[in-house]
């Protein structure tokens, strides 16, 4: 049972990782930025919402 649970946990991480990557690729900042984001190396979202105060 422990092995089955562990397998499904890993599959769940893989599935959610793929789903998030798909979302990020098509609806957020693109593939490269999404891969970096999932790996914990994202660059932040300062310009995310189009709030350009300096303009």
């Amino acid at each position, binding site marked *: 049972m422990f092995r089955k649970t562990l397998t499904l946990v890993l599959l*769940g*991480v893989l*599935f959610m990782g793929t789903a998030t990557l798909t979302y990020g690729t098509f*609806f957020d900042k693109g593939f490269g930025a999404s891969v970096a*984001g999932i790996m*914990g190396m994202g*660059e932040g979202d300062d310009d995310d919402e189009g709030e350009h105060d300096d303009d």
Partner: protein
Amino acid sequence: MRGSMTMTKPRWPKPFELLLVWHGLLVGSYTIAYLTAEGAHGLHQFAGYSALGLLAVRLTAALIAGERPPWALPLPKASMWKNFGGKLAHGHFSALLGRTPFAPLSGLVILATLVLVTLSGLAADWWEWEDLHESLAEGSLAVVLIHIGIVSFAPLLKKLGESRTGTEPDGLTRNA
């Protein structure tokens, strides 16, 4: 078409298998939300809302299931504590190898913690609740690690015992 292949009849997944799938998806969304917390707000929101949805599904299922396992809330029953405590009091430490009441207790604590984390994340989308959300999320990691430790302890101990008895020559007794 007739062939020599043996056909396995497809069957619906059992409720417990569905619970394991749900558990896997929740772990996945928590992991991705944790990894994307610092630098990828959009992805963090996606994973966070997924976790929130999964928690809503779990709580709704628990509400419908009532006390019927496996979707009932993992409440450690008083009889379970009594039985476990009694075994330990009599020196039957093999009780630690089975399912201890700490496993459902840690599951319940995790559920409650993650509900707070995801709801505070939801609130942080509208109000200035980022600090509360971050603090709860950081704290939740400790709860998750404790849960992993508790549920892995018994199988690992069992495995260790099996490997020891497998390598030891017969007739030798170990100091308990």
